[in-house]
């Protein structure tokens, strides 16, 4: 892990995420109903996820990267309330996923 110092520069999210410990599992922990995501008008998961793991693909579906998931459930809450309910929320299997050390 490289040192990330608090200077007056904004720090990219990728860099900030690199400070957190993860032990990602092989398989993604969340799934989608792509037909619902395609019709989703807000794609709110893409701005709400604190780790920005959701991206809109060209065909309007959502591409999700599970490495870096902070396991906060924000995506589930926003998708159910302001999205098109296309996300099937899940968490990594036991032992895997985020390992908070200072929180």
């Amino acid at each position, binding site marked *: 892990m490289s040192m990330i110092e608090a200077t007056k520069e904004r720090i990219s999210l990728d860099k900030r995420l690199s400070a957190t410990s993860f032990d990602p599992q092989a398989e993604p922990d969340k799934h989608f109903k792509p037909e619902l995501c395609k019709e989703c008008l807000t794609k709110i998961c893409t701005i709400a996820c604190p780790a920005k793991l959701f991206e809109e693909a060209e065909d309007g579906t959502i591409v999700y990267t599970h490495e870096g998931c902070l396991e906060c459930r924000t995506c589930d809450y926003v998708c159910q309330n302001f999205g098109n309910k296309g996300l099937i929320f899940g968490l990594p*299997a036991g*032992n895997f996923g985020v390992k908070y050390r200072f929180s």
Partner: protein
Amino acid sequence: MASEKVDVIIVGAGPSGSVAAWELAKKDLQVIVVERGAYPGAKNVSGARLYGYILPMIFPDGEWKEAPLERCITKEKVIFMTEKGAMAIEFYHKDFKKEPCNSYTVIRAKFDKWLASKAEEAGALVASGVNVDELVIRDGRVVGINAGGEIMEADAVILAEGALGLLAEKHGFREMPKPSEVAVGVKEVWSLSKDKINDRFNVEDGEGAVLHLAGFPSKGLRGGAFLYTMESVISMGVIFHIDSIPEIGKELNETIEDFRLHPYIFPLVEGGQLVEYAAKTVPEAFLLTDKFYGPGVLLTGDAAGFLFNLGFTVRGIDLAMLSGKLAAETIIELKNRNSLEPGSFALYEQKVKNSIIWRDYKVFKNAHKYLRDPKIYSEYPDLAVRLAKRIFEYDGTRAETIYQAIRRELSFIKLLKLGLNGLKGVKSI
């Protein structure tokens, strides 16, 4: 499928699960705690502040003095912020240092590990890295857990799974909380030397400060920001309600950088090293469910919704520990009476309703409603900073008394309304 039976299974090795395990194991009950994280605390994100009164209640023999407590909080700062300004009220009191301190900051990865180790010392088995898929229900009664196809049975299950509450929802103890009732906190943890933290917050060794901020970067939206001092790290972040997210107008992850780079905040963390970036959602409506127990199962801590948010006082860990203790006492009593039939678990409700949890809930039940007032998040912080600026600034063009400054910012009616609303706030939080 292997099946074995113990006295009690506890889902989650957080503060409520580990306290329940400690109490039960001390009475020689066979207890297994299953924790999905690689170690207790691995999945926990918290302010994190613990109110000291609870420690001697759980550890009357003084074992709590070995607990990894970060700093004794002697300084509380309430800060109204705007993009360029900040108006702070600082409170210090020496009495906050009297043992046990009014409150301590804790790092959950350390504190939860310690608490789980106490449960282990008392004889409980803590199994980390085990994710529970569902509760096992037979004839309408919870009889155990299913973890990856492996069934384990017990006379009673304590559901101490925390704020995510997935099992509680799956089994109908609560519904998914409404977006107005859930807050998301995003946090950065910065490592700094102990001496630098002492200097920057003007505190003695072992003492610390907690900053509560309103107005920026959550301008106009329900939410706020916080900064907690640990022994040699600073934990800072932003909080938004889920229903505010569509209105932020930028990515959630950017707001915390706006906060860190605010000219009033930046010098506090300057030169620190980032050691963690974290996020968590917490349902804030106290008692998400009135069903915090069922046949064979008791819900504790955040899983049951035991959390008070009074704006500047957020209490969750103490309520979690207390509810863990009450759940353990319920099971011990039922076991002694040899009365584990499905209906008898209502004893837990009695115990909760006779406890500090319920007494305080009755006092604070309007706070949540009051904290929905959007004025708290924009109008008041703006007003506080504008008024303070008028009072402290002199540029040679105007002179005015404090009264004149107030009257220039506020009509008589507005002043009256502000007073009335302030009174409402004082009565509810």
